[in-house]
């Protein structure tokens, strides 16, 4: 089960709602118990026996949190922190990175010997493992740092670790935030319910209408791997993927936040119109906010941050971005993606201090902002190309073409090569660019809609849903971040 299966909306969410506010109305403990059981049911339906891994992570971090809180013995506290980190990182390492390490080892060993070939283990990647391990690790680290107290009840903590809307693909929620949300009995409100519905419908439309349709074009180019020297084709496919990944992931976040609203819980925002960013730093303040803040708080700052000199800052930034890239997936293209983002951040950081550049952007006003936006987005989309293509035989020529190294422009060839549905995809991509631009300027469209008169709300949401039903391509594409 996931957020685009009808069963989620027809059976799962209504049952959760009815149980939480019907049977367990105004009884906090019962509500949490119901949410926990239903979260486990959701996870079981999504990932089967991997539920055990979630239980292990939950139990270890719960125990570590309690033990660290109970003692002032620094060594003991450190030991419990290590247990928590080792457990979570081991789960990640075994289930997500083991085969990647074996393959990389085989690749290296091939250089020196032709017989040493270790077989891949072939473990299936547990759904959401990157998200819930990061979430529970942050809990243990915060208690170790004495930044927060442990949860009073195991039930509350288990619910925090497994809360179904954000369990599979975030947002990565901080323990304190969730504790605040559930400290009183959960109570629905008409406004909140409608806001939840708005976010869910908006998310469904964004995923099915835009993400899945533009994905067909991106896939055609990058999977077929033909005409990779055609600049028009590579730019178009990269633009399509950039739109796809944003609409896909932000749609998931919208549905997650919307589902949580229905049951009276508020989750943090994960995106703020990232393609309106005018610098790499600005981009990371707008893209996957819950991950970027996590990386900042638990990697970048502990590694030295920006207050320990230039070299330390470069090291911390590059390590953070490399690991951030690797977090996305066990593949070298993700490492490269992180590396390029790290370089962009460093170049921006030091470049903006160069007097000429500082003076230029200071003097040019809006034109400078436009130029800054263009450069930023050019490189952001360049990194999406790296993110999308795992096969180096396709990636390298595509990268060269993207930056104009060789290559040619042939509109006819691009037109002939692309899938049959072209005008519609172009229209949808254009609509996205327009709406994203407006949203970047004004913002808060979903909240605005949730406050409108029932007629306006009904007309907008009914239309969005009918478009989602009609315009989704024949085969629904899995959420991209399910793989992470």
């Amino acid at each position, binding site marked *: 089960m996931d957020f685009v299966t*009808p069963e989620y909306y027809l059976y799962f969410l209504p049952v959760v709602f009815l149980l939480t*506010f019907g049977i367990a109305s105004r009884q906090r403990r019962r509500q949490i118990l119901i949410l926990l059981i239903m979260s486990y049911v959701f996870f079981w339906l999504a990932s089967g026996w991997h539920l055990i891994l979630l239980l292990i992570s939950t139990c270890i971090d719960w125990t570590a949190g309690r033990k660290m809180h109970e003692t002032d013995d620094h060594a003991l506290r450190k030991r419990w922190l290590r247990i928590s980190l080792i457990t979570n990182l081991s789960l990640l390492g075994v289930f997500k990175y083991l085969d990647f390490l074996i393959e990389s080892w085989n690749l290296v060993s091939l250089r020196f010997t032709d017989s040493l070939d270790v077989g891949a283990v072939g473990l299936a990647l547990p759904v959401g493992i990157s998200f819930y391990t990061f979430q529970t690790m942050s809990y243990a680290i915060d208690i170790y740092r004495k930044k927060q107290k442990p949860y009073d009840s195991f039930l509350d903590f288990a619910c925090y670790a497994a809360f179904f809307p954000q369990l599979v693909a975030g947002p990565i929620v901080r323990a304190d935030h969730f504790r605040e949300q559930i400290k009183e009995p959960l109570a629905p409100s*008409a406004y909140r319910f409608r806001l939840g519905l708005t976010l869910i419908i908006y998310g469904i439309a964004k995923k099915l209408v835009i993400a899945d349709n533009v994905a067909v074009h991106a896939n055609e180019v990058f999977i077929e791997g033909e005409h990779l020297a055609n600049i028009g084709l590579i730019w178009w496919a990269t633009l399509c993927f950039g739109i796809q990944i944003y609409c896909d992931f932000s749609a998931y976040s919208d549905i997650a936040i919307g589902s949580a609203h229905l049951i009276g819980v508020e989750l943090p925002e994960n995106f703020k119109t990232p393609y309106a960013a005018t610098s790499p730093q600005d981009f990371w303040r707008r893209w996957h906010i819950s991950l970027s803040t996590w990386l900042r708080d638990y990697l970048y700052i502990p590694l030295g941050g920006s207050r320990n000199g230039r070299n330390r800052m470069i090291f911390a930034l590059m390590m953070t971005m490399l690991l951030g890239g690797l977090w996305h997936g066990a593949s070298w293209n993700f490492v490269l993606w992180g590396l390029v983002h790290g370089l962009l951040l460093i170049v921006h950081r030091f470049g903006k201090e160069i007097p000429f550049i500082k003076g230029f952007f200071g003097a040019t006003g809006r034109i400078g902002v436009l130029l800054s936006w263009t450069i930023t987005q050019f490189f952001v989309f360049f990194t999406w190309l790296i993110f999308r293509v795992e096969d180096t035989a396709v990636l390298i020529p595509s990268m060269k073409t993207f930056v104009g190294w060789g290559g040619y422009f042939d509109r006819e060839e691009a037109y002939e090569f692309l899938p*049959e549905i072209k005008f519609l995809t172009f229209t949808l991509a254009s609509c996205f660019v327009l709406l994203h631009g407006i949203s970047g300027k004004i913002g808060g469209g979903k909240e605005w809609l949730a406050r409108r008169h*029932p*007629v306006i709300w*009904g007309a907008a949401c009914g239309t969005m849903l*009918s478009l989602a039903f009609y315009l989704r391509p024949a085969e629904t594409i899995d959420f991209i971040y399910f793989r992470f």
Partner: protein
Amino acid sequence: MVVIMAESLSEKNNLNLAGLLKSIFIGSIVLIISTQTLSTYIIQPLIFDSTLVRHGRYAISFDAWETIEKDEQYSVVGIGSSLTQYGLNGSCIDSSIMTNDVGVYNIGIPGGYPYVEMMQTERAINSHPDVIILELNPINLFSFSDATGLNDYIEMRFEINSLFLKISDFGGWEEIIRVEDLSHIDHPLSNPYNSENTYFNSAAEYHLKSLVGSEINDGSWAKNAGLQYLAVPEPHTSEWNNYLQNPPLLPRYLDTFNNTELEYYENITIPNFLERARYNPHSESNLNKLALEYMVKSFSNNGIKTILLSYPIYPTAVSLLSENQFDQHNNTILDLLGYDNVESLNLIWLDIWENQDFYDIEHLDVSGREKVCSIMSAKLAQMV
């Protein structure tokens, strides 16, 4: 429980429960209206004019039943495949029966099989026809397990039928459908708008192209290209009514052959044809047979007279049939005659047929249609 939930939902952030319910109600109405509108104005015209599918006729059944329902005359409706399409001349039968108030409709669909055609059973019953001429030839009884390459056709027909399907059209036929085929049929809860989704993107693409002048979209490219055979007139127009009685047909296929080709056709092609599953009917464990039984039983239970009509086959082919080859076909007719209000008319074994009466091995041409017309008129005259 409900009261507590209602209280909780009320009066927060300036939106009360009534406002929320009103919002959901309006949203649902907009959803229903907009989906219906998009289907009617964006998809269906391009299906009828055969832009999105090979033949607009695939889509006529349900609209045809609406027309038949409104017809106050004594209505006779032919259901089946292209055998019916080429074999039943509605206007000829109309004029041959000496009674004025009879309407004979031909809704045979190219490539149709009982397994697909049974989806219209409930709609047919609700349209209250007086007589149904149900095609029952050996080809209607072939077993799917013997055939390959049919799945795409079944998927396409199920999806097109689903565009027109209402909740009241669902019935016992659902139980006959194979599990793998059920996903091609829209269901209001489990699989809503699947068929619209299949065609909408192509339809929207076509309309967008026509907006920028890349395609001509006057709703009937087939007509402009001189392919009237493939296009269907807009439902519920006078042209549509004529179409339902007497669909345009292709000129005789066998006339395109020279003597050598005809000799090859009769000596090689036809014997090969007769080896196929289409001409070796099965009557047991057969989805087509089950579908036929379902239709006959449903019509019979609702007091609708049914004539099981077996259209003739090219005489040379009949002479090449092996002994007992059609026994299962004959047995099926006997089985189905066990239901009330059912009669049969097996034209295969009549000796009136000449090769010239046929368009090809199994479809009739002008003179063949006239012969069927006179036989059917006599039969119907007794019933009216």
